[in-house]
């Protein structure tokens, strides 16, 4: 988009150069510039999903998630999912990535790459630097629902960590706190690869994530190697409970997944 704007300025400015004194050629120059600018702003790939910017610098989640991991995870892994979903959706109707989730199991590329894009966009948005995160807390409504569903926050964290243990989500996957379809309680579910509970068929019914953790090895290997339990127990330090509370309020009201940027 920046490239498009820059080329618009340059093109329009050049339309007023001495070479374009005749008004008809200036009109031509301007219309060519606008066409070029439009082409840059709206690439031929119609869906043009993009990797959303991180809401914090790469190093902001240190020491719990290291800077190199954030860089590679965001700039490479997430970017690859975005490039691939764009390829898969070329020529198709443009919809928010959330809308692709329900029927994602119908098509392998959408399941893997659409799921990958949604999951990672969701993930970045629910975290915050440790000094910010520690000032956040679940809303009254969320706290009440956590107690009703798990007994206590500690119990929820304990169950979450068990679900995230190596072997529990065999191989690559994600662990989620979700609101069940009826909206009556929270549950903890694990999904393999880039599946998520919004996809019809992944669980017995569609469930709405309010919190999720990437337990693919690329999410923690540089710092933690095989020590996944340490990664998981450290991760609570960067969870933004205000955002999680917002997610909870949203899914409770709309009975739909949380929209994400990109």
């Amino acid at each position, binding site marked *: 988009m920046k490239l498009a704007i820059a080329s618009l300025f340059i093109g329009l400015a050049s339309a007023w150069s001495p070479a374009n004194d005749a008004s008809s050629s200036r009109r031509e120059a301007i219309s060519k510039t606008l066409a070029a600018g439009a082409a840059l702003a709206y690439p031929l790939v119609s869906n043009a999903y993009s990797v959303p910017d991180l809401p914090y610098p790469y190093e902001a989640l240190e020491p719990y998630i290291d800077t190199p991991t954030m860089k590679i995870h965001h700039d490479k892994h997430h970017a*690859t999912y975005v490039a691939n979903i764009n390829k898969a959706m070329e020529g198709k109707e443009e919809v928010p990535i959330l809308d692709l989730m329900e029927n994602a199991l119908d098509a392998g590329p959408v399941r893997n790459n659409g799921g990958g894009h949604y999951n990672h966009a969701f993930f970045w948005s629910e975290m915050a630097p440790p000094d910010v995160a520690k000032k956040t807390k679940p809303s009254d409504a969320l706290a009440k629902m956590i107690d009703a569903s798990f007994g206590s926050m500690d119990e929820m964290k304990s169950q979450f960590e068990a679900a995230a243990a190596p*072997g529990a989500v*065999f*191989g690559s996957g994600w662990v989620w706190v979700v609101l069940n379809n009826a909206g009556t309680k929270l549950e903890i579910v694990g999904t393999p690869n880039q599946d998520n509970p919004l996809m019809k068929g992944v669980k017995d019914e569609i469930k709405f994530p309010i919190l999720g953790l990437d337990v693919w090895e*690329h999410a923690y*290997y540089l710092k933690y*190697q*095989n020590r996944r339990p340490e990664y998981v127990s450290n991760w609570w330090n960067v969870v933004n409970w205000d955002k999680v509370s917002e997610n909870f309020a949203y899914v409770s009201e709309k009975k739909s997944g949380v929209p994400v940027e990109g």
Partner: protein
Amino acid sequence: MSGKKVIFDTALRASVNLQSSKLPSELTKSSTALFSALSGVKATLPDLPYDYNALEPAISAQIMELHHTKHHQTYITNLNAAMEKMDSAMINGDVSAVIALQGALKFNGGGHINHTLFWENLSPNSDYNEGGTLDKALKERFGSKDGFISELTATSLAIQGSGWGWLVYNPKTKMVDIAACPNQDPVEATTGLKPLLGIDMWEHAFYLDYKNVKPDYVKAIWDVINWDTVEARLEAAK
């Protein structure tokens, strides 16, 4: 062993509600047989046939050591724990518990099998026997050794999430072929195909060296394949 047998026979008598101390002879014979099968054979971590740094630069010593002493060891530890639980479940005739353990057995047992095969099909010495049994089989199925390399590379890179790429022998078609299995699913147990060469595509197998650039890992691993082992496995499989 005899002490355990006394306990076991007592339990058997109790379970069949016999008043007599004498069990039917068939039952005592079969209980002994059953018990010796559950004598607690434990899996152990095999030594690597080479030093941790032997496969550099394709795979770093750091990865080899972590992969061997942490990841493989964990599968073994968890496999042994699952097998112990399986022993109890079988002795107690607890069908539900036996079924519940299948996931852990497949995951950890598969992990142990796969990694044991993996260490053996890697080597700093990757001499290839032109015209040998393996060479002939690869040419028959893939046209050339390079054709095979190309296909297994593509299959391995296409795996979503965690899994393994394999050269296998198909006993039905009597030809070699390519397979991919998810997670730690063991090839033979889940497909009937016989594993000849495995490439670990779990991120822990390459991440510290290659990060997200999987293609560079797979390209490099071809420099450290133990073709002799692959050929020996093929000859054994036929």
